């Protein structure tokens, strides 16, 4: 029996459900193409802003035992440069059928619209709106994703400035993620990516009594984040009816299946590139396929959200 790993995300076909998460490797088309050739079903760029950003001094990412902690500071060459990178990635990935997701962020609600308009010129297959970076604070010293009203406003501005399907990336650092999910879907989000990194957290170098990261605090990702991410995706999928890219600590096929069982359409892979290398995409796909064969599923939809049924939500 043939197993079909392809999924449809907001009308866009992915050859398999694994997605390179934003912030990992996605700075240049050369590396995006390499990740796609390593088996990713879609690739996401690093978050792009209107103006170039240097980011913070090093160290910006370290492994601390249970995962990674990072405060890169959203470094990127600015939308003018990234439009060319996205175009080049699109062109080279078209024959592989691997879609490109452009991650965008801005300092103000208004600028989210502007960056969405600019990035759309490169015709990415999807736009992911990063309102949830734990290391960058908005003008009110809060993360956009902490407030349902602000999250909805950002979503509306982005939607008004592009005809490309929009995913809104949510934060786990909220008391009630389902309210935020409802607000962005109500505001027109075509899908949700959940979740961004957790925290911020703090890791010290005890010899010098200083934080290891130059920024001090940083977002926690990797295995330590996974159970929280699963719960967030579960909360979102039982509340709203849009496709979800589940991201947060997925390193194995087992973790990916778990996310699909709580309702995810696709699975974002980020920190696992550190733990497993670029082979992680093929390994996860292989494992999902074996799981499907073992259970007699032919398509990913056949088991998507199965845990929601078991838990009485459908």
């Amino acid at each position, binding site marked *: 029996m043939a197993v079909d790993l392809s999924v449809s995300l907001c009308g866009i076909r992915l050859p398999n459900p694994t997605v390179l998460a934003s912030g990992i490797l996605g*700075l*240049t088309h050369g590396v995006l193409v390499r990740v796609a050739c390593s088996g990713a079903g879609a690739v996401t760029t690093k978050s792009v802003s209107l103006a170039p950003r240097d980011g913070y001094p090093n160290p910006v990412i*370290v492994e601390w035992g249970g995962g990674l902690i990072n405060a890169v500071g959203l470094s990127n*060459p600015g939308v003018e*440069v990234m439009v060319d990178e996205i175009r080049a990635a699109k062109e080279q990935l078209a024959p592989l059928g691997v879609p490109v997701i452009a991650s965008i962020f801005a300092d103000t609600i208004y600028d989210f619209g502007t960056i969405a308009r600019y990035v759309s010129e490169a015709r990415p297959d999807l736009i992911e709106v990063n309102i949830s970076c734990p290391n960058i604070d908005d003008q009110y010293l809060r993360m956009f994703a902490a407030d349902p009203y602000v999250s909805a406003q950002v979503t509306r501005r982005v939607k008004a400035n592009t005809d490309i399907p929009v995913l809104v990336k949510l934060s786990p650092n909220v008391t009630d993620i389902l309210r935020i999910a409802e607000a962005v879907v109500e505001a027109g989000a075509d899908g949700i990516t959940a979740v961004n990194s957790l925290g911020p957290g703090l890791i010290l*170098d005890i010899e010098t009594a200083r934080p290891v990261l130059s920024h001090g605090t940083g977002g926690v990702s990797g295995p330590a984040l996974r159970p929280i991410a699963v719960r967030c995706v579960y909360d979102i999928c039982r509340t709203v009816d849009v496709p979800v890219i589940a991201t947060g600590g997925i390193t194995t096929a087992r973790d990916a299946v778990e996310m699909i069982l709580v309702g995810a359409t696709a699975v974002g892979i*980020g920190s696992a590139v*550190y733990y497993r290398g670029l082979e992680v995409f093929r390994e996860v796909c292989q494992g999902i396929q074996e799981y499907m064969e073992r259970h007699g599923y032919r398509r990913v939809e056949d088991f998507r959200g199965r845990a929601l049924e078991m838990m009485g939500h459908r």
Partner: protein
Amino acid sequence: MPLPQIVPIREIYVENRRVRTFVLDTALPEAQPGQFVMLWLPGVDEKPISIAYPSPLTLTVARVGPFSTALHRVREGERVGVRGPFGRGFHLQPDRPALLIGGGYGVAPLYFLAWHAVRQEIPTTVVMGARRANDLIYVDRFQALGVELVIATDDGSAGRQGTAVEAALEIARRDPPPVVYACGPEPMLVAVLHLCQKHGLPGQLSVERYMKCGFGICGQCSLDGMLVCLDGPVFSVEQLASLTEFGRFRRNPTGRRMPV
């Protein structure tokens, strides 16, 4: 090695007006020539530095920017952070003579390689280039290893006048043909690449790019689809010849392409 290890600096040598060598109170016995460490000055920054010798860990750093300027102010006994070793280094070919070509402070990591080559009894020639006699470093150390040493300076104030690659030409033509190992400024590496291609010599070249994470997840040091921190910093002539960015573009901290 996930978190930086904090170690005192045991000794500091002033090599010349721009270059100092730092001997750290730690050892990386498993490190390979051509690999690098991330050197952390808490409160300042962290940068990739090629290993000049692993036990004790020895790093030779030129003053080129804010980080290296701060590092040059550090005194013996003060502490720094180290992560690594990272990256893919040189692979000595035991059945062929070794031709090591170093430019400026790029000769320091070649010392580690020459030390291995001598230990494996590989006939080794080191060609080092510098602007003038005062800029030469590591001459005594290479002499103490007993390798054949050829010096070239731009102004002829030491050794022969000209570039290291020009000085290497004659050795490249020897029989049996050597394997070329190089570290230095990118224009020199491009010349080495052409030398290898012209004479059909295998070559391994150590490339430098701006790095952030140092272990293959941020993408900052990408060179076409390669990651200098993970796939490099040492690349083969064949790899480099297939890239569009080598010798042409590097990336600044934002990730924007700049001319080399």
